[in-house]
């Protein structure tokens, strides 16, 4: 299949090209802040991509996804604080820590569904928040400064802003590709079937609980990576990284961009964070605009931006999520 020249594809290609060229543009414009902003966007987009795997494809409404950002971030921060600077130790610990947390939380919360699932994931993530806020050795509420970014072999140097940006971008693209492979595999079909009709899946012979749990753990692990990147980006970790409103932001990115669409979370992350930047330039009280805007999106534009782009194609053909 050759991709058609549709509005949606053009928009996505333009976005990807823009992201690839961003450091060049920032350099030419002499705007260092732009690069910092987009590094942050790319990192949070990675988290949103991981959330989309469970939320968009799996129908699991996790409201605790920011917990993995925190766990991944603290793995880097705490190890750095203890003098362990190697990324080859820090990052695997970040991934393993997130995976373990996702396994425990998932095993418990996937026993329930619907609203219970939302509340439980939210509550456990908040528990993680309080745990880290209680760690006096690592700064407690105030957080922990990271004096040295994760060390890898030469010539990889995360302190080089342009290099770091491209590393994040590469990891984001890899994650999008991974999720795309995953959701179209047998495993992914199982997950999508469970989203669509869990009872029926069990009736035709799928023990859906274990598939959903594995999916939940994969998403958590991926988000842990995003946390490790975020810690390196801000040179700082604090419980605020995993406050529940951050989980809300991630959900907004996924829904705003388009749930269950491969590039949706990326589009949503760019849209939300750029919008925040623009609004906060207009007024100090920008959330007073963002809040109702969000409500309007929910009420009138459920397919998100990706959904609008698909509509723009003019073809209202029954689109199967792919």
């Amino acid at each position, binding site marked *: 299949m050759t991709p058609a020249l549709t509005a949606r594809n053009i928009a996505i290609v333009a976005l990807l090209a823009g992201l690839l060229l961003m450091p060049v543009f920032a350099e030419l414009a002499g705007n260092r802040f732009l690069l910092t902003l987009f590094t942050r966007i790319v990192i949070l987009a990675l988290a949103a991509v991981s959330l989309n795997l469970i939320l968009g494809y799996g129908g699991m409404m996790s409201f605790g996804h920011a917990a993995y950002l925190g766990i991944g971030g603290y793995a880097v921060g705490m190890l750095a604080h203890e003098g362990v600077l190697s990324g080859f130790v820090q990052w695997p610990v970040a991934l393993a820590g997130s995976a373990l947390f996702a396994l425990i939380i998932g095993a418990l919360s996937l026993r329930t569904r619907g609203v219970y699932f939302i509340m439980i994931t939210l509550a456990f993530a908040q528990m993680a928040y309080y745990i880290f806020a209680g760690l006096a050795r690592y700064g407690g509420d105030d957080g922990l400064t990271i004096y040295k970014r994760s060390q890898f072999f030469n010539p990889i140097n995360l302190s080089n802003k342009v290099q770091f940006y491209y590393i994040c971008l590469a990891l984001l693209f890899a994650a999008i590709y991974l999720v795309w*492979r995953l959701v179209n*595999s047998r*495993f*992914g079909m199982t997950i999508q079937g469970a989203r*669509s009709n869990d*009872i029926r899946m069990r009736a*035709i*012979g799928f023990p859906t609980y274990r598939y959903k749990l594995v999916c939940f753990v994969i998403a958590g692990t991926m988000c842990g990576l995003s946390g490790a990147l975020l810690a390196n980006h801000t040179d700082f970790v604090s419980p605020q990284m995993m406050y529940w409103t951050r989980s809300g932001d991630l959900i907004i990115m996924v829904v705003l961009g388009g749930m269950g669409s491969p590039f949706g979370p990326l589009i949503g992350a760019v849209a939300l964070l750029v919008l925040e930047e623009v609004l906060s330039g207009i007024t100090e009280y920008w959330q007073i605009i963002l809040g109702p805007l969000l409500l309007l999106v929910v009420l009138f534009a459920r397919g998100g931006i990706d959904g609008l782009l698909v509509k723009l194609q003019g073809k209202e053909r029954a689109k199967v*999520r792919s």
Partner: protein
Amino acid sequence: MSEPMLQVENLAKRFGGIVATDDLVLNVEAGELHAVIGPNGAGKTTLIAQLSGQLSPDSGRVRFDGKDITALPMYRRSRLGLARSFQITSLFLDLSVLDNVALAVQAHAGHSFRFWRNARSEPDLREPARAALARVGLGERADGRASALSHGEHRQLELAMALAGSPRMLLLDEPMAGLGPEESARMVEMLRALKRELTILLVEHDMEAVFALADRITVLVYGRVIASGKPDDIRANADVRDAYLGEAETGAASHG
């Protein structure tokens, strides 16, 4: 003759004070189409739910092909070759018609912890799924979304999904419910073709269909078997007439 395909021994299920299944004994021989009929509230759907593993009985046993399956969960029974269709159509509406059936095929192809290869282009899944769709007359609609099908087509798809796992026995829960006369007739033809290859337990309200298709009929009233035998014997049975058939025939007539 060998052992029956499905043996139900002294099955009982209560919901609070209501007896839904009462010391029920039922044998379905391999290769037959066995219909279960009874007035509303006779416990037919509860019976199917217990046979498929959706509900667990309070006491009694269910054997499938000689194996005790009473304690097995739904998915294990389905893997043994006991497939079930649903009364209330329960499909994957936001997936394609073919995806629906391919999932049913996949369910029988061992575990699904395969993360990389594109399942939508695996011939092992797609070809049997297309074959099952063709069998029920939905071959043309394979690539549409399941939500776009008509009610009758949903029933056909339902049947295709049950067939997809190449089951040895089908539990069909009112496949004619809500179908127009034409669609019903088509469904009867389809079942007639299927019963040559499969053992079928059919729960159905449509008496015309039941008497046209069944090799044997069991009549259930308040969860209890009041008669079981060949269609002609059932028609002639005085108890069945008293308890049920008279009423059901007028009911069926009013349905058209």
